[in-house]
């Protein structure tokens, strides 16, 4: 794998850190008045999702990570695994429940997700920013209510629970912002 010098660091570059693939979020050069320049680098660990900050001295090298991001279409869940397909090559990817666990409530059949592969293995999935989900269960709807500060919890057909306005009823389709797990409007 290629090595990258600190001077080549830029946002989005994928590197190996503590044997996990990480993506650079921010790279800041810090130079003490009388000292050597250092780079303070903020990383996102692509496996754990955690953000970490490391400091390197100029001239150091880090190994690149063999990470690829693919736009894959979610097909179906067969009970054990989640099946995705590359809509261009029709190649299928079978992804286990651990990798999917944090986002499975946002997986809607036919939606295009970003799947991150490391050494050809899927390590994380990013669903679209907005998905359309159906309300599976909630208290009965009230007419005339508008979006207010208060709402009510609703369980979606995928299992996620979020606050919705009072007028939403079972069977309604709603738009959900997957980044913050919030109601984003009627579908």
């Amino acid at each position, binding site marked *: 794998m290629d090595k990258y010098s600190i001077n080549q660091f830029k946002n989005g570059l994928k590197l190996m850190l503590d044997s996990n693939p990480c993506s650079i979020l921010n790279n*800041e050069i*810090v*130079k003490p008045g009388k000292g050597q320049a250092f780079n303070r680098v903020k990383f996102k660990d692509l496996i754990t999702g955690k953000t970490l900050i490391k400091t390197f001295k100029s001239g150091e090298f880090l190994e690149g990570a063999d990470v690829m991001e693919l736009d894959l279409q979610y097909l179906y869940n067969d009970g054990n695994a989640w099946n995705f397909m590359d809509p261009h090559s029709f190649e299928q990817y079978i992804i286990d429940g651990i990798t999917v666990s944090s986002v499975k409530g946002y997986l809607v059949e036919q939606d295009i997700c970003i799947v991150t592969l490391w050494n050809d293995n899927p390590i994380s999935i990013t669903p679209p920013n907005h998905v359309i989900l159906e309300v599976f269960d909630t208290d009965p709807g009230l007419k005339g209510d508008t979006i207010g500060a208060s709402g009510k919890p609703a369980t979606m057909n995928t299992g996620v629970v979020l606050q919705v306005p009072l007028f939403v009823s079972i069977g309604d389709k709603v738009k959900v912002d997957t980044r913050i797990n919030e109601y984003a409007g009627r579908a």
Partner: protein
Amino acid sequence: MIRNTLIKKQLIIQKIRQFFKEQEVLEVQTPILQNTSTSDVYIDSISLTINTDIGIQSIQYLHTSPELEMKKLLAQGSGDIYQICQVFRNNEYGKQNFNEFTLLEYYRLGFDIHQLMADMINLLKMLGIQDKVYQLSYAQVFNQYANIDILNTDIASLKIIASKLGLSTDFVWIEDLQMLLFVHLVEPKLKNLPLCFIYDYPKSQSTLAKVKNQVAKRFELYLNGVEVANGYDELQTKDEYQQVFICENNKRKQFSKLISQIDVSFLSKLSKPLPQCTGVAIGINRLLTQIN
């Protein structure tokens, strides 16, 4: 918009001049073109070629700081002086570092670093920076934010700490490790102390400051976590300066960096030592960004 920015800068520089006028600190201008490059290990001079006569060229350097030229004046009896000038440094880039920036440098005779910090607090107040003032020693901040007894920890132990944090340990000199740990563990926390002076540095980081009671009599000013000023209780004798220059050049040699000629014109002015004085360099651009 640009005019508003220019007006703000003009106003602040006027206030700085007013402050020094009231204190009878004299404004000076010293040569920007130098015959020698800086000996600072981690600062590089920008060189240029000058035609001294038809066909005869000489290499000169833009000053990286007006320090030595101002000290020549102090040695000759100038009294308290200040200067606002552009300085030039090679290989500096980043969010807070540029190849050219404006520096305010001033020297007060008879002051120690605590008197100089008090003087700076007055200057900052005049410029509208009125936050609560924190004054902490280097040892205190390390103890508080990193739980390290920095003055009594040797290089081997610092390497172990750095290694546990996943940081570089490939350093020959202890000061580099101290600075790395400072940058990594302490500096991010200084954002919580909007106006903070850090003083009494490890003697390994003394540079041109006096060492007393095992610590270098230096301070740095941090505004919202950004280093803005660097102050020293200045060395006074020719021998002390000569020793520092030789030591720094030896370090430059190890990095295969340009070795600076010893500034003979500076040392020759020190046949009589400098008067007891403290001096501070303040980054004007960084300061401006902190003033509303």
